[in-house]
């Protein structure tokens, strides 16, 4: 529909002056709304209409090409002198200086600046403005923030495509596990990592034997490449001399390096007297010369060495718990532990799940082994003493981590729940007595705070998708490095709540450990009593006891299988019930915050618990 307004004027009237006059508004066209068209539209209420008075902007992402940075030094020469003056010539410089001193501008400037400077210097002399004025108030802070950790650096051995194309050497295509990490003792800016493939006979021909020392400032290129004759399984810095490292090789030899001398080992132990299996643990000893170390391997031997003379070990010990010193009965060692404050004692974790405590200074070999602690179902992958309480130590193996006290030999005093994946490594925190870290084979790092919560880790972080193989805490307790199966090292910084000592922590931790130790002792005593009673009773009924061991192996097997499946089914049912149990109780809580709801919830829970008990029994 067209709206038109027609205006006509006679041609003879063109050019006449216009006389404008005001008149009120007049409606030219009025178009009423047509209700018939309303059916073509749908009512929309509310209507969102954005009004903005800014310029339109668009966002783009740009990924820059990766730049390889290299540190170089620059040599400065003295500059700033005018062209005609040679800075090496003393006379010329002296002459120039004297000339400048006579310059009036110079004199004025100095007077002016001098006054200004004097004012500030006097200020400084009068009062120290940067003093800590409110020191007492800082202690009142409580750590409310939830524990967290953040990754600060990821060192991956996989080099960029650049190197693959341009380098002449073989790039490390086969990924090897980072089996052991060791921080530099003083600066903690360097990390020595041992790489090897622990899969049995999986070594491919192009797998390199090198292990690296990384500088944290440069995660792209290792600072030093260590070239042993066979891959290193473990590597440790000497705590006294930070240039010396000892490494245990896959073929059982021990080698030591001096970082000042380069990447080849300074000396290698002779093959005949070394271990016959990979050296899983090598630890430096506390000695006056600072050159003694000892190593353990799955061939059942613990050997002591002086690195000045690696041609033969100074001492050997066969890990035979029957104390006969027979190689055949020996248990393979997987970890070693040594506490510098107790130089004669050390502990070995074995493949069979037993921890052996040994005394080095015993006179006969049979007395060297003082006690054994068994409790793990699989190899003990990590063993470490609590830095605050040397009698308490942590073992990590199979699916749990256990805390033991040296006095109770029957069982551990505290343990974590059974996880779904293997635990591969663990260590105590160096600053907090009740905190420790564990790594799992599903790539998770757990931080446990036993004073806070014992059932679950306080912090559980998924570090990577592949299993984590090793873990090492820096001496300051804040940074932890973990190595994975494919050779990636991740450095994480723990939140300060987990690495600062809380107020009563030491006393609380002492109390906790003592309480648990006492509990275990009581249990042990009770077990012993019960066993004595059983023995006394069985001696009275001699013949009846003999019938039980006559069960045939087949029956034992069937019985074991039946028990096993019953336990699994009970667990599955319990889990299914727990899941269906959760929604009803959640909705009840939502309706009321009243006691009735809570009471109802309890009532419905009670019959369920009874059902579960019946099924479990």
């Amino acid at each position, binding site marked *: 529909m067209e709206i038109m307004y027609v205006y006509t004027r006679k041609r003879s009237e063109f050019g006449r002056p216009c006389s404008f006059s005001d008149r009120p508004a007049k409606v030219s066209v009025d178009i009423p709304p047509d209700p018939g068209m309303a059916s073509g539209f749908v009512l929309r209420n509310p209507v969102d209409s954005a009004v903005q008075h800014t310029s339109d902007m668009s966002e783009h992402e740009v990924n820059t090409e990766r730049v390889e940075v290299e540190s170089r030094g620059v040599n400065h020469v003295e500059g*700033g*002198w005018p062209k005609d003056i040679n800075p090496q010539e003393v006379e010329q410089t002296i002459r120039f200086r004297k000339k400048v001193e006579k310059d009036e501008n110079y004199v004025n*400037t100095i007077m002016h600046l*001098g006054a200004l*400077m004097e004012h500030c*210097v006097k200020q400084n*002399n009068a009062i*120290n403005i940067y003093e800590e004025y409110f020191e007492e108030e800082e202690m009142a802070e409580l750590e409310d923030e939830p524990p967290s950790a953040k990754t600060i650096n990821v060192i991956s051995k996989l080099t960029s495509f650049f190197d693959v194309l341009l380098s002449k050497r073989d790039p490390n295509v086969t990924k090897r596990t980072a089996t052991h990490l060791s921080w530099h003792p003083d600066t903690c800016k360097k990390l020595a990592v041992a790489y090897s493939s622990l899969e049995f006979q999986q070594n491919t021909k192009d797998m390199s034997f090198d292990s690296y020392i990384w500088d944290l400032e440069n995660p792209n290129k290792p600072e030093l490449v260590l070239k042993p004759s066979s891959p290193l399984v473990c590597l440790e810095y000497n705590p006294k001399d930070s240039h010396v490292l000892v490494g245990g090789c896959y073929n059982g030899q021990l080698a030591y390096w001096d970082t000042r001398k380069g990447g080849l080992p300074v000396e290698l132990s002779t093959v005949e007297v070394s271990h016959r299996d990979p050296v899983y643990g090598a630890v430096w000893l506390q000695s006056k010369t600072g050159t003694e170390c000892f190593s353990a391997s799955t061939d059942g031997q613990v050997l002591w060495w002086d690195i000045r003379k690696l041609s033969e070990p100074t001492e050997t010990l066969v890990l035979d718990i029957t104390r006969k010193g027979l190689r055949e009965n020996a248990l393979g060692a997987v970890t070693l532990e040594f506490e510098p404050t107790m130089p004669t004692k050390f502990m070995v974790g074995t493949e069979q799940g037993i921890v052996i405590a040994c005394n080095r200074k015993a006179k006969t070999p049979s007395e060297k082994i003082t006690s054994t602690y068994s409790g793990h179902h699989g190899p003990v992958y990590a063993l470490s003493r609590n830095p605050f309480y040397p009698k308490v130590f942590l073992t990590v193996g199979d699916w749990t981590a256990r805390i033991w006290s040296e006095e109770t030999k029957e069982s551990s005093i505290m343990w974590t729940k059974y996880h779904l994946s293997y635990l591969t490594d663990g260590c105590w925190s160096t600053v907090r007595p009740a905190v420790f870290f564990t790594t799992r084979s599903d790539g998770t790092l757990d931080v446990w705070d036993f004073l806070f919560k014992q059932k679950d880790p306080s912090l559980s972080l998924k570090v990577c998708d592949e299993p984590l193989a090793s873990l090492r805490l820096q001496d300051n307790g804040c940074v932890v490095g973990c190595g994975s199966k494919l050779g990636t090292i991740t450095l994480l910084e723990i939140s300060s709540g987990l690495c600062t000592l809380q107020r009563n922590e030491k006393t609380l931790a002492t109390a906790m450990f003592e309480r648990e130790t006492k509990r275990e002792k009581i249990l042990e005593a009770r077990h012993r009593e019960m066993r004595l009673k059983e023995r006394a009773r069985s001696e009275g009924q001699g013949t009846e006891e003999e019938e039980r061991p006559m069960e045939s192996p087949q029956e034992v097997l069937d019985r074991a299988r039946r028990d096993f499946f019953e336990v699994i089914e009970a667990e599955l049912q319990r889990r299914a019930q727990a899941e269906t149990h959760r929604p009803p109780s959640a909705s009840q809580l939502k309706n009321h915050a009243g006691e009735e709801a809570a009471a109802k919830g309890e009532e419905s829970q009670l019959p369920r618990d009874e059902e579960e008990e019946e099924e479990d029994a």
Partner: protein
Amino acid sequence: GIPIRTTLDNSTSVQYAGLLHQLTMKARSTVRDIDPQNDLTFLRIRSKKHEIMVAPDKDYLLIVIQNPCE
């Protein structure tokens, strides 16, 4: 910059002169970037061991190194 008059040994003076000259330039340009009417009058750097005070001028710099009074 070149040291005209100094109470320290030559090498240290040269080092201080060169480095602090650049730092003062940078500090001055920062102050002026934020507010063009502003200018740097004094620069104080307090470190663990000393306090370094720099008074800049158009042509010259006066540098004083002081031990804090703790």
